């Protein structure tokens, strides 16, 4: 079981990486008036067949060969649904997959969002060949991190070189703080 929503996001986004996506977008949107926290992970990877989509929520379905269970998606779905929220996967083969999870913000059963900046930092610096488009939104304030924009500025300097990854870490943390004023989501 994961202890933070951000760990579920890290795990489920690895599926996009393994699906050979080149563009992965991750959006976190908290709305205190509507009392919801929405997470959307969308990629342009290989997608899934109808049969795979039907099976992906089953913990005993996995495409791996190292073990017989696949808990990533079931964990994420459970985390959303126990709050009274919802969960959905849309996928088109050869076009991509989108995962939607909606959490009820005030539910006592909702795990904290946790260190979402660490999740994004890990994803971006470990998969420098992919483009990440990250949106973090709380009520009417938001910030966007688009690695395509960073790469345009940097040219051939890699995103995981120490100076750049340090900048990315600072960018994520400072902007997050400006958007949510340090409240714990």
């Amino acid at each position: 079981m994961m202890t933070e929503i951000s760990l579920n996001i890290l795990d489920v986004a690895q599926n996009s990486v393994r699906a050979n996506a080149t563009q992965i977008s991750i959006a976190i949107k908290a709305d205190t008036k509507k009392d919801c926290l929405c997470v959307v992970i969308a990629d342009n990877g290989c997608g899934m067949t109808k049969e795979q989509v039907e099976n992906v929520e089953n913990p005993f379905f996995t495409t791996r060969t190292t073990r017989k269970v696949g808990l990533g998606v079931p964990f994420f779905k459970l985390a959303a649904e126990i709050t009274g929220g919802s969960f959905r996967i849309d996928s088109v083969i050869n076009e991509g997959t989108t995962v939607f999870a909606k959490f009820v913000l005030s539910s006592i059963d909702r795990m904290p969002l946790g260190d979402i900046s660490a999740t994004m930092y890990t994803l971006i610096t470990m998969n420098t060949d992919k483009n990440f488009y990250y949106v973090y939104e709380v009520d009417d304030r938001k910030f966007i991190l688009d690695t395509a924009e960073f790469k345009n500025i940097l040219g051939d300097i890699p995103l995981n070189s120490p100076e750049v990854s340090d900048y990315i870490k600072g960018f994520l943390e400072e902007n997050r703080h400006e958007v949510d004023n340090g409240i714990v989501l």
Partner: protein
Amino acid sequence: MKSLEELKSIREKMQAQVGLRAEEKDLTRIVVGMATCGIAAGARPVLTAFSDMVQQNGTKNVMVTQTGCIGLCMYEPIVEITVPGSEKVTYVKMDAEKAKEVFEQHIVRGQIVDKYTIK
């Protein structure tokens, strides 16, 4: 708000340094298992600790990467370290504190930390 101007100045500074990138075969590899099992067991702080140590110490020729599940889920978080010319060493049940110790002993001083390796 951190600006993109700052990124531009990083680029200019770095372009001035002539590429001294190490060849693949000379790299020490730190590989952290980051599948569901690893993440649930606490792999993210382990990975971050190694990245931070490399950054803070300005260590050259070290690459921190991730891998999927290697089938030993009960021993996660698992970290594999390969120093060029030596056998791969597998550390198990890691956390951020142990990662710092392993970095200082194994990466910096070349001493394998036996107590955290798999028997």
